[in-house]
């Protein structure tokens, strides 16, 4: 049940990094899987106290029921989350800004409920928002010095939709500057730690959003995914990360990194939460011409309690395991976790076959050329003329040069330079154009593979979370870590990452994420299958040690 319903226990034992959690630690790389739905699995609406091994429940739905039934107030909930945030934040540093109006907004929810006024489905739900999503009432820096203190005059569409449904933005989460990075170490302001082991990175670029959900500093969070920036940190932090189809969610108000690849994504501690959050933010937006007219189906029926499922709930589903994602360069622990997940799918009734995507390895160079090229253009607006940091200079070129030299970090500068080079006269055909051709090949090979399979699976990252600083000075090694995810962005497809097991590391093991890739605009199927997988995963509880003592669920 909701941890927040209980008075938070003293966290005087912080940091809890060295206290082993026997029920969490697995020397083997996999969890046990149950092929049969267990009778005690709680339904979405069931408020029974879960056991330590019970699968995750929807915090959004539980919050709603708890609030409407009067068992808890939004204010109490908000206070408990804020308390935990305050206690964990010195260790994690996942937030760049914490809202000062959370309690006020929570009181407003309580006032409405008390007055029998209608409240939205997200009433009282505490949402973390990646700092590259514009918020009108909070600073939005995109993790960059050049926008330090910048306050946008409008809310990003995704943020606005969550707020319109009653959601409370708890704060802005840390990220690699403008989304350029895989560890959140390239934030201009602070380095976020992984809640599973604070000496490790949370992944990136949405590391703050992933860590915040993992450490229950918020219930769900918004991130953005250009080359894996939602999925890889979800994998590193043991949470669910959903990258929707390109065009599914409006990018209006998302500070552009690579416009043809960027999508706003969702983090939750359960598949249901990620799906419910997606439903809230998805759909056509007149402020983003690249959003799709496709209807957003109701995903809720997909999150039925497992007790209602038959023994082989995924009978007939064709799963394709991408061979190239389990080859050289992928940690053995990751490979065995994914193979175990494949077995679990078989137990659920799926047919699992290996598929080959020969163009898979081409994705990484193509991605870095396209993303850098677009970013070199998208970041041109940060010139110090209208907003953001301006360095005074007595002539124009120095104003530009100095403002940008001081405002941007080195990773951003490197990518701007690479992108400018790739788009330059004489190089365009060899780089940008060629990368676009590769993109078409990749898109077609995914299409073919998804004709023969309903869902493709792969690891979300070739390794679990690594140490802070480990790859900081080796950009190529860090770029290589994106191999599992960039192809999906190039193809514009939806993908769901959910924790499927552990490998050794830290005090309690490190989570491993399974990536499921679906056909365009078929997030519903990913969520349905992901939910069944998650709910039938036995003996796995993805609560990081930093809060394990504090949070029973």
């Amino acid at each position, binding site marked *: 049940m909701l941890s927040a319903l209980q008075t938070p226990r003293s966290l005087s034992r912080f940091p809890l990094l060295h206290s082993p959690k026997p029920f969490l630690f697995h020397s083997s790389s996999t969890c046990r899987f149950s092929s049969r739905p267990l009778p005690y699995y709680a339904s979405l609406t069931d408020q029974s106290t879960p056991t330590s091994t019970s699968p995750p429940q929807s915090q959004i739905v539980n919050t709603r029921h708890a609030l409407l039934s009067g068992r808890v107030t939004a204010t109490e909930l908000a206070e408990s989350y804020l308390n935990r945030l305050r206690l964990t934040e010195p260790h994690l540093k996942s937030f760049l800004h914490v809202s000062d109006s959370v309690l006020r907004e929570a009181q407003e929810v309580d006032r409405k409920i008390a007055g029998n006024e209608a409240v939205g489905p997200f009433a009282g739900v505490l949402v973390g928002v990646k700092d590259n999503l514009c918020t009108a009432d909070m600073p939005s820096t995109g993790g960059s010095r050049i926008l330090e203190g910048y306050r*946008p*005059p409008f809310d990003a569409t995704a943020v606005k939709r969550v707020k319109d449904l009653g959601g409370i933005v708890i704060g802005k989460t840390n990220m690699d500057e403008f989304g350029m990075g895989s560890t959140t170490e390239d934030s201009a302001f602070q380095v976020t730690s992984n809640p599973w082991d604070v000496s490790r990175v949370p992944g990136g670029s949405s590391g703050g959003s992933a860590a915040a959900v993992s450490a229950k500093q918020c219930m769900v969070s918004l991130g953005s995914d250009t080359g894996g920036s939602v999925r890889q940190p979800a994998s590193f932090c043991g949470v669910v990360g959903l990258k929707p189809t390109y065009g599914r969610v409006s990018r209006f*108000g998302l500070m552009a990194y690579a416009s043809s690849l960027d999508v706003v994504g969702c983090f939750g501690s359960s598949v249901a939460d990620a799906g419910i959050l997606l439903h809230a933010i998805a759909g056509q937006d007149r402020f983003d011409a690249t959003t799709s007219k496709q209807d957003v189906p109701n995903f809720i029926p997909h999150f039925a309690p497992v007790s209602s499922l038959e023994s082989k709930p995924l009978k007939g589903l064709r799963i394709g395991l991408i061979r190239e994602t389990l080859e050289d360069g992928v940690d053995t622990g990751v490979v065995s976790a994914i193979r175990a997940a494949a077995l679990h799918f078989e137990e659920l009734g799926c047919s699992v076959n290996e598929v080959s995507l020969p163009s898979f390895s081409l994705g990484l160079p193509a991605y870095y050329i396209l993303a850098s090229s677009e970013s070199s253009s998208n970041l041109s607006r940060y010139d110090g*003329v209208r907003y953001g940091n301006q360095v005074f200079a007595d002539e124009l070129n120095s104003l530009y040069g100095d403002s940008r030299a001081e405002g941007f970090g080195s990773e951003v500068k490197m990518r701007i330079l690479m992108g400018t080079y790739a788009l330059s006269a004489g190089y365009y055909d060899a780089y940008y154009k060629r990368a676009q051709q590769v993109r078409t090949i990749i898109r077609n090979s995914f299409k073919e593979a998804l004709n023969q399979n309903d869902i493709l699976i792969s690891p979300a990252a070739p390794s679990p979370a690594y140490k802070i600083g480990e790859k900081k000075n080796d950009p190529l090694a860090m770029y290589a870590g994106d191999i599992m995810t960039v192809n999906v962005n190039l193809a514009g497809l939806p993908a769901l990452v959910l924790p499927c097991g552990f490998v050794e590391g830290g005090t309690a093991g490190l989570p491993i994420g399974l990536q499921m890739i679906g056909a365009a605009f078929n997030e519903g199927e990913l969520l349905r299958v992901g939910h069944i997988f998650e709910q039938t995963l036995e003996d796995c509880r993805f609560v990081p040690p930093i809060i394990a003592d504090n949070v029973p669920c």
Partner: protein
Amino acid sequence: MASTIFRSFQVHPFLLYPTSLLGRRNGVLYCTMKTTQSQPATQEKHSPQTKVSSSSTQSKKLNKIAEDYEAVIGIETHVQLSTLTKAFCGCPYNYGSPPNTCVCPICMGLPGALPVLNSRVIAFAVKLGLALNCKLSLNSKFDRKQYFYPDLPKGYQISQFDVPIASGGYIDVDIPVEYGGGHKKFGITRVHMEEDAGKLLHADNGTYSQVDLNRAGVPLLEIVSEPDMRNGIEAAEYAAELQRLVRYLRVSNGNMQEGSLRCDVNVSVRPIGQSKFGTKVEIKNLNSFSSVSRAIDFEISRQVQLHREGQEDQIVQETRLWEEGAQASTKKTVTMRKKEGLSDYRYFPEPDLPMVILSQEYVDDIQNSLPELPEIKRRRYEKMGLSMQDVLFLANDKNIADFFDATIAKGADTKLAANWIMGDIAAFMKNEKLTINDIKLTPEELSELIASIKDGVISGKIGKEILFELLAKGGTVKGLIEEKDLVQITDPAEIEKMVEKVVAENPKQLEQYRGGKTKLQGFFAGQVMKLSKGKANPGILNKILLQKLNSKN
């Protein structure tokens, strides 16, 4: 300091930081200031710029040099579209609004803002493309043209690069009779859509500059001609015909003073017989047709002079500014900036906007809705038997042409209608500074007036009197004739009585007449007319008068 300029920004205190201070040492900035300041303060909404004039001395000089050298002229024209809102956002644009009052996050290029195309821009582009006899690209796209300048908020201009919406057309031009007349066909290379930039405003003391983004994002069509023109008159006529077209199509007000129609001309000179083009020079700051014509003729003379002196290597690829001095000797082109190689704009497809796909049906609908275009109109008028001067006058302004067409549609004689419009009506409009839409006279009444004179209901003299009444106050011809009792006397018996009376009252003059002083017929006619209060039909009057004067009894 920046308070007036950023007035609107300060309404939203944290929306914007007025940090647009730029040094003035930069040569480019300095020149731009001159352009903005040279704009006249008073603006007429729809000032007709019919006549293209050229200083006669220069023309003579040209005639001399034209024997050995040939000029090659191409023109790039930017036409500001009169859509209600800007190209990619919902801001209205009104020329002359206080700085930064027609702006929003999108046209200001704030982080996270995205462009959404105004579909009217496409409709206008298709209209002009069809009117210029171009081939339309059913699939075109937008590209980003990248460069840094403070008036360009995003650091790139949304434009079209390799696939313009229309290309390969031509325009028909009739050279005015006073410049030798004749028909010319000039090629149109391409028409593409793009957005305008803002404006820099430079402080009087020269210590800082400010940015006005009202114009940023206003839709433009850029029309590039083939290098088909050979002298200033041809170039000015080309521009005048473009202005006529955009006004006929109602896609722009075509006003050069406001900058709604801007011409940049490229001029090169080569010895006759040489096939290779000479070095081309671009001329800017041309805000009337006469400045187009004069600047080109000046530039041709300058270049030919350099050729003559064997100094053609002094002609360098550069942008020159046309300076309109008070005397002929101070009108000249001066160097604005030298081109240092080709600038690399690093064009690439705009990822924020979908492709522009036109259906044949859409194009056909627009084709069928096009009004009669100036060229067709001129040929039609020509076939009616009107002189070339009449044709050019009437077809120059669509409103006048419509008035003329409506008049003859009511049955008026073509030549008479043309004479009335070009004569007394045009003079009235000029004196009163009115357009044809402002006058009270309707085509129906003009037709009625012409018919009344032709049928002898009123005399031509009375017709003229009535006309001014109709122009200034309105009303109907019939009403005025009745009201003022102006019907012509055509009854011979009545006129005979008056003649007899006058003859009887002037025996002395009659004697002189009969004695051979036949010039006195005019005296008698005048007396009769006076007696009839001007209403006697002059033909009948004279006929009867002669009979009476010459009869022997």
